[in-house]
């Protein structure tokens, strides 16, 4: 219902306020291996042809909208991780992260993701997920 309202009543609030943009990192969980975090949802290089056809970048931006909604859910369910894991945006984001993990290793089984400001090595985590099972994607 909210999505229809947003469609019918656009806010025209383009780039109105700036808030720090979190970066998403994923890592495959392997027993005994060191954790290597890899950033995901990074921008693609822009070419003139993308003025007409830019599905990858539009998809990436739509996925980042899911991330923004997830951040709201994380704040709403702080201290209740079990409830957070059942929310629709969390489930949606698990599928996004699973896709990225499967690109890195098609046989991956488990992964974690985290949200950080800027550089993962230097800043504090905004959120660190529990160990999650990879969600397989239709071919």
């Amino acid at each position, binding site marked *: 219902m909210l999505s*229809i309202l947003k469609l019918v009543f*656009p806010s*025209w*609030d*383009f780039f109105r306020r700036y808030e720090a943009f979190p970066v998403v990192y994923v890592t495959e969980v392997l027993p005994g291996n060191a954790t290597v975090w890899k950033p995901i949802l990074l921008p693609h290089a822009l070419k003139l042809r993308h003025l007409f056809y830019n599905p990858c970048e539009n998809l990436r931006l739509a996925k980042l909208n899911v991330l923004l909604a997830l951040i709201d859910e994380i704040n709403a369910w702080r201290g209740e991780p079990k409830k957070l894991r059942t929310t629709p945006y969390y489930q*949606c984001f698990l599928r996004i992260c699973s896709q990225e993990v499967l690109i890195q290793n098609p046989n991956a089984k488990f992964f974690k993701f985290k949200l950080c400001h800027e550089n993962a090595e230097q800043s504090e985590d905004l959120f660190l997920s529990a160990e999650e099972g990879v969600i397989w*994607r*239709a071919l």
Partner: protein
Amino acid sequence: MESVVTLLSLCLAFALYLQSCEYVAIRKEFLVGGTWAGGDVSQNALFVSHLYLRFVFLVLIFLPNFFPSLLPWAWLGLLISQVVISVRVKSPFSGGVEGLIFWAQVCLLLSQIEGVGVTPIYFLAILVLCSYFLAGFKKLFESGWRNGTTLEGYMKKSWYRVPRFIQNISLCQFKWTSWAIILTQMLLPFLLFLPSGFILFSVVGIVFHLSIFYFFGLNRFFWGWLACYPAVYLLLRLGDI
């Protein structure tokens, strides 16, 4: 007047065609394991099939003389499709431009009804002009826009891949650029009061949207707003009548 409505219809159909191609390219995101996968396999298959159906509607719009009686149904079909996609994605897929395209489709659909005429197209034109003015007007009340820090943040530390030279730009330059953006957005509708106002409006608008594409990669905004410019032209002609 009718030719301008036809031009508007074709321009919007072109913008929707580009969108539809992009939706088909990312169709896997709506299947099992995809970002916006639905509950069951048949539901997902039905959703993806409807993405292809959009092209049938678009053919009907691109060839209005072949099936004139089906034209309102084609617009209705595209409108329903857009609502279905927004519900599935739980938000308008590309933000604000979806709202404009939604209203453009509603207005074109209403203008097909006998006796309604082009009044909905005037409404669309006012909506386009308001979208520019309000976007600038709201920024005016944000201190971050007035001192340039908001634009600097979006350009230097955001999810968008902006050109590298941006990293060397000072806050003072961002401040001037911010004011240029605010004034452009707020004054753009008023350019229409000048002689050859529509040409001036179109040129400034195209440059503005091209720069948004260049810096942020938002191609849908370019085509969505440009597609509605014939409605603005029609509104301007209203003064001549």
